[in-house]
């Protein structure tokens, strides 16, 4: 049972009374439209356990006359999507939670509750997520249409004396708060380390200090303006997000992209992946205190930033991906030259690895540290290199190929241990793979334009890409004027922070920075 239509047919039989099936055969997408919320948890459970689909995320939308809750599921081994749709009237205040059945939905529901003021009944932990309780009162719902952006600041009633919920109840147990501003050059996030002395028993992150309401800001903007937000909310992986946004707009407007633009997009996406992975490797070396290795890796990362800058004009690949293709063309020679330099940098990284894997002081600090088991990672719905280090597949380039990846033969890189060293090895192998793909593309570029005309029209679509940190999904709805009506991003870091607490159980305090570095999570990509 894998083709989505087959799944839809079975679901249609199973819940014939309460569910309407709609299949789009051109794109392998089917929608299950529920008429009652009662069966929602059962349908979600059935899709993830019996039909073996992966949960991608929840998109909440306030349409003109009703709510639209869209639960996204996708197949892991062949193209195919199932959208579960539930559209109650706007007067509805509560929806049954699916997280007891599908744990991966947990933080998606928390986000929707905080931003839309909808309660998910049966959810164990709502409130104080995106909007902190010591900064905003409950019942502020900024994503609602009625929310007045100007008045919001005037009516603040923050709850003073907010305390984190603690779990450990041992004699002498205490909570050690770290952040939001802490040592070195770090992103702002807070961690509550529950400890009884030497060892930390649990670590609970508190995020969204950097919440910039990117999705609210995008509403009513033109596609060109929103593209700037998509590119800049997580600038270290700017190209992947700009690409996913562009793919969504192109899907709404049914735009065809020239083969040359498709090839160059893959080239740039893999260049970004390579640079990002080199950056994470650098941070891992830095966290273990091996200063020569950290410096060597920093040289290599800077080399790649310079390579990106020299090739495209911007060190973080801004101003390239746009709906319709790319904003500028590259000569074949430029690409081949970039590949040569990238290969040199890769050689440098490989030399470094040969030294690292014989340095016991380095290995001791990575092996068996911050382990995420296959079972846990699977339940939390983790994505990206982090998940692949625990043996969890689902690389979108292979599972749901987009933008030309369907033509390539990409082997998914996986490891099984799920510890820090496994994550380092996945990063290395993916970096090698990225350079291989770049080399392949640079010799097979087709001639032609890189930018196609795009005729904006109303509609909504999902765009997705395998960003360097994992699967990213961008939902874009355009109104009849071609402006953004709703923009929602499900980012890999948002999903993967959910797995943070299972990697941080019973560890020694000095391992904390190492675990953080090997997870390679971005706060800005989560906070949006």
């Amino acid at each position, binding site marked *: 049972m894998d083709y989505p239509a087959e799944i839809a047919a079975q679901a249609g039989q199973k819940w014939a009374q309460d569910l309407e099936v709609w299949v789009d055969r051109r794109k392998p997408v089917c929608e299950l439209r529920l008429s009652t919320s009662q069966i929602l948890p059962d349908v979600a459970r059935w899709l993830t356990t019996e039909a073996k689909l992966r949960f991608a995320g929840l998109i909440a939308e306030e349409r003109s006359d009703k709510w639209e809750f869209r639960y996204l599921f996708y197949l892991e081994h062949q193209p195919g999507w199932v959208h579960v749709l539930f559209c109650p009237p706007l007067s509805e205040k509560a929806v049954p939670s699916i997280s007891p059945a599908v744990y991966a939905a947990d933080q998606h529901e928390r986000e929707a509750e905080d931003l839309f003021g909808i309660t998910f009944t049966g959810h164990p932990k709502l409130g104080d997520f995106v909007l902190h309780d010591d900064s905003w009162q409950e019942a502020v719902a900024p994503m609602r249409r009625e929310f007045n*952006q100007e008045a919001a600041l005037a009516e603040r009633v923050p709850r003073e004396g907010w305390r984190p919920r603690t779990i450990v109840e041992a004699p002498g147990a205490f909570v050690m708060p770290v952040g939001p*501003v802490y040592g070195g050059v770090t992103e*702002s996030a807070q961690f509550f380390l529950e400890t009884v002395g030497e060892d930390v028993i649990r670590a609970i992150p508190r995020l969204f200090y*950097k919440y910039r309401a990117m999705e*609210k800001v995008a509403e009513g903007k033109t596609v060109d303006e929103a593209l700037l937000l998509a590119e800049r909310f997580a600038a270290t992986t700017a190209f992947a997000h700009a690409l996913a946004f562009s793919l969504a707009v192109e899907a709404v407007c049914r735009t065809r992209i020239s083969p040359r633009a498709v090839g160059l997009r893959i080239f740039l996406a893999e260049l970004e992946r390579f640079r990002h992975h080199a950056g994470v490797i650098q941070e891992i070396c830095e966290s273990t205190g091996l200063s020569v290795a950290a410096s060597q890796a920093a040289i290599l990362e*800077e080399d790649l930033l310079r390579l990106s800058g020299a090739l495209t004009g911007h060190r973080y690949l801004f*101003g390239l991906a746009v709906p319709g293709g790319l904003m*500028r063309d590259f000569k074949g020679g430029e690409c081949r030259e970039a590949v040569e330099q990238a290969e040199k940098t890769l050689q440098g990284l490989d030399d470094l690895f040969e030294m690292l894997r014989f340095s016991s002081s380095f290995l001791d600090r990575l092996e068996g540290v911050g382990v995420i088991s296959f079972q846990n990672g699977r339940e939390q719905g983790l994505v990206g290199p982090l998940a692949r280090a625990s043996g969890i597949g689902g690389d979108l380039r292979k599972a749901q190929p987009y933008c030309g990846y369907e033509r390539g033969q990409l082997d998914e890189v996986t490891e099984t241990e799920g510890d820090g060293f496994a994550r380092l090895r996945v990063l290395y192998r993916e970096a090698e793979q990225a350079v291989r793909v770049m080399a392949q593309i640079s010799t097979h570029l087709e001639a032609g334009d890189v930018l196609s005309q795009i005729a904006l029209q109303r509609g909504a679509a999902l765009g997705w890409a395998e960003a360097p940190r994992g699967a990213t999904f961008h939902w874009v709805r355009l109104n009849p004027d071609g402006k953004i009506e709703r923009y929602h991003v499900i980012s890999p870091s948002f999903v993967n922070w959910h797995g943070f607490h299972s990697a941080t159980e019973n560890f020694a305090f000095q391992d904390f920075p190492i675990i953080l570095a090997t997870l390679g999570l971005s706060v800005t990509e989560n906070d949006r």
Partner: protein
Amino acid sequence: MSQWVSKGIFTGIKSTRYPQADELAPGVSPGMPDPSGPLSEAQQQDLIARCPTGAIFLQDSRLAVNYRRCIHCFRCVRGTDSPLGWKKSYEWTGLSSDARPPEWPKAFRRSLHIRIVDAGDCGACLNEVKHLANPYYNLHRLGFFFTPSPRKADILMVVGPVTDQMRRPLHEVYEAMPTPKLVMAIGEGALSGGVFGPSFVTSAGVRDVLPVDVEIPGYPPPPLAILHGLLVAAGRKPPASMVAEQPDLAQVNR
């Protein structure tokens, strides 16, 4: 362990010669738009319309670029038949209008300690700040050091437009620093709110929250631009103008 020592030695010196000499390696800076080329009035109007942040504007009927608003979207040079010029520079730092020079340069002439606060940054500015410590830029050779403690810091670097929930932590860091102290706003986000602010959750840059002394434009400013900013803060380099103007042709021809 000896292999690491020899690896370090055989790598040789990588550090840039800046500020003694210009750094000319390709890809060190995204550069900035350069309005000095000849453009017809229609072309000027087209460029002004293309700029999403209003960085390109007319000043006394001459085209000018406000570096404080440029977000490196490249829309003034890509996808148009009459592109604006482009300048491969990185010395962009200027003094803010509420800078307090009487306290410096005397107090800031020697080694300086920096505390950085991420107040809603997109990740790029922070990554570029991190790279200041890499062997290529090696800010320690110029007497600058990062410190985790605000109590030891002379300079507060702020990246990001200052989100609502970071406002209080940012204030606490500022208050904890001893005087005299300097505030540096790094990147378009910290200067004006960038593409996100001002909105109901973000300010229009650091100046809404704290008095800013030194401003470094760029989205993100490359490490060399930040290095220039630090040298300006220490009074070892003169500040640059953050507005580039078309030269007055009437003056030139006279």
